[in-house]
């Protein structure tokens, strides 16, 4: 098949300069594929330009820091990767803040790989998961702002949330919201761990602007790496379950 195409391309390339323009666009070659063979050739001058950078990087990036029991995949409204990451952020935030918070949120778009494969986890995977230099930030939200935040996440199809937050999404709106099993208390202030990106209004979160906040000054990525290394030291592997934290209304 490849040869037929190549032959056809060659024939057409020869004919091309000699064809009548008015008729040209309905010619037979709109979907010509460059063969795999050609596309998989490498360019030596590019490889030699990359080589010294790659060597410096690989030494650090290829280090295995932990292990995933199952593939942690990113999905909406809830996923293993999202649950794993948000729970990790919740734990790390409480550790560094030195007091409990209500829950932690990762923005869906901030997770930059589709999954962490099962098996060894390298430092590289965590860099690709969270390439941004986002810092952990705790925002203190009144009930109204908290609801606005949850509505924003529901509209986005559900963002990764730590286990304390649960809700259903119907027609893009959150329903049956609970935090640690309780409905939102209109008199309370809620401590929520997010990234400074969101706290600064990124991801469409302009409602955080007036909120009191604690900037922990710790990179989300570094906290993630440290957490995995510590787990590994304790003989623990990375895992997460799907537990219906966030569900679409029609899901069983």
């Amino acid at each position, binding site marked *: 098949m490849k040869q037929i195409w190549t032959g056809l391309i060659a024939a057409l*390339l020869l*004919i*091309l*300069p*000699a*064809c*009548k*323009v*008015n*008729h*040209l*666009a*309905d*010619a*037979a*070659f*709109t*979907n*010509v*594929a*460059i063969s*795999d063979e*050609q*596309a*998989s*050739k*490498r*360019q030596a*001058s*590019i*490889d030699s*330009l*990359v080589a010294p*950078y*790659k060597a*410096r*990087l690989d030494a*650090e*990036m290829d280090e295995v820091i932990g292990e995933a029991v199952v*593939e942690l995949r990113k999905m909406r409204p809830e996923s293993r990767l999202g649950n794993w990451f948000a729970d990790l952020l919740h734990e790390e935030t409480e550790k560094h803040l030195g007091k409990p918070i209500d829950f932690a949120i990762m923005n869906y778009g901030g997770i*930059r*790989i*589709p*999954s962490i*494969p099962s098996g060894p986890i390298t430092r*590289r*995977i965590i*860099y*690709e998961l969270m*390439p*941004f*230099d986002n810092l952990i930030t705790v925002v203190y939200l009144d009930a109204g702002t908290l609801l606005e935040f949850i509505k924003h996440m529901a509209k986005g199809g559900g963002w990764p949330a730590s286990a304390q937050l649960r809700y259903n999404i119907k027609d893009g709106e959150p329903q049956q919201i609970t935090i640690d099993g309780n409905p939102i208390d209109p008199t309370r202030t809620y401590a929520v761990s997010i990234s*400074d*990106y969101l706290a*600064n*209004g*990124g*991801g*469409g979160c*302009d409602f955080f602007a007036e909120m009191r906040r604690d900037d922990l000054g710790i990179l989300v990525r570094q906290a993630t790496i440290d957490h995995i290394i510590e787990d590994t030291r304790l003989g623990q592997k990375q895992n997460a379950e799907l537990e219906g934290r966030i569900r679409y209304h029609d899901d069983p």
Partner: protein
Amino acid sequence: MKRRAFIKKTGWLAAAGAMPLSSWTAPDTIKLTILHTNDVHSRIEPFPMDGGRFQGLGGASRRAALIETIRATEEHVLLVDAGDIFQGTPYFNFFGGELEFKLMSRMGYDAATIGNHDFDAGIDGLAKQLPNANFPFIISNYDFKNTILEGRTMANKVVKKGKLRIGMIGLGIELEGLVPKTLYKETRYLNPVELANHHAAKLKQEEKCDLVICLSHLGYKYRSDTISDVSLAAQSRHIDLIIGGHTHTLLKQPERVLNLDGEPVLINQVGWGGMHLGCIELLFERNRRGRCVNCKNLAVGA
């Protein structure tokens, strides 16, 4: 109008295989091959062989080889990028985009525009890497007055390929709410439709360009009324081709939208991570109106 009748009759690219080759005879033509990338996101090596969906795909070395293969047979090649060159692999975290720009320079990129993630090391981080790029950054709707990038980008540019004059403009996305202000600082986002039409008119009418290309990081299409390549095209004049980015949209072939004058605008975008190379071949006849002859998005690797 002859050209529109032609398009209507043939459905531009849609009809494949209908034309008997024997009906072609000799005219005076020039062929332009436009190659493009978008949202490469520091993907210098192919995606790792880790069982992931994209494993083994892309990679700068193979992209360079593919481009060289095409350059070997095509006389007039234009190579451009639609932004988000930075961010996504540790190469960016460690080296700040230095290698990305060096590689694009080596591959012979003619121009690029600026994506939101190109501000991820701050406007200062982007400015610091500019000396590693031997190609210009074209951006028509960011006002960099009072920033370190003032005077270091172009609002439009004419590139000559043989006898062809190709005009280029560049459009960036609204930064507020997307990029922390601490990173983009005093950069002002200006109305992309107004600026695009202004510069495109200038390129077509004053600069007598045969073709006007818009490098856009606005995004392909949205359900909301946010400006996108598709809505821009409909509100535009004098733009022939939009090379898009931001939404990581992989089109099988360019989309066609009619502009304010009822003229077709082609929109193309090739996913992300350097997994594909956009390839648009235009044939110009003596009266110098572009025709999309052979538009295809090539896979890089496996």
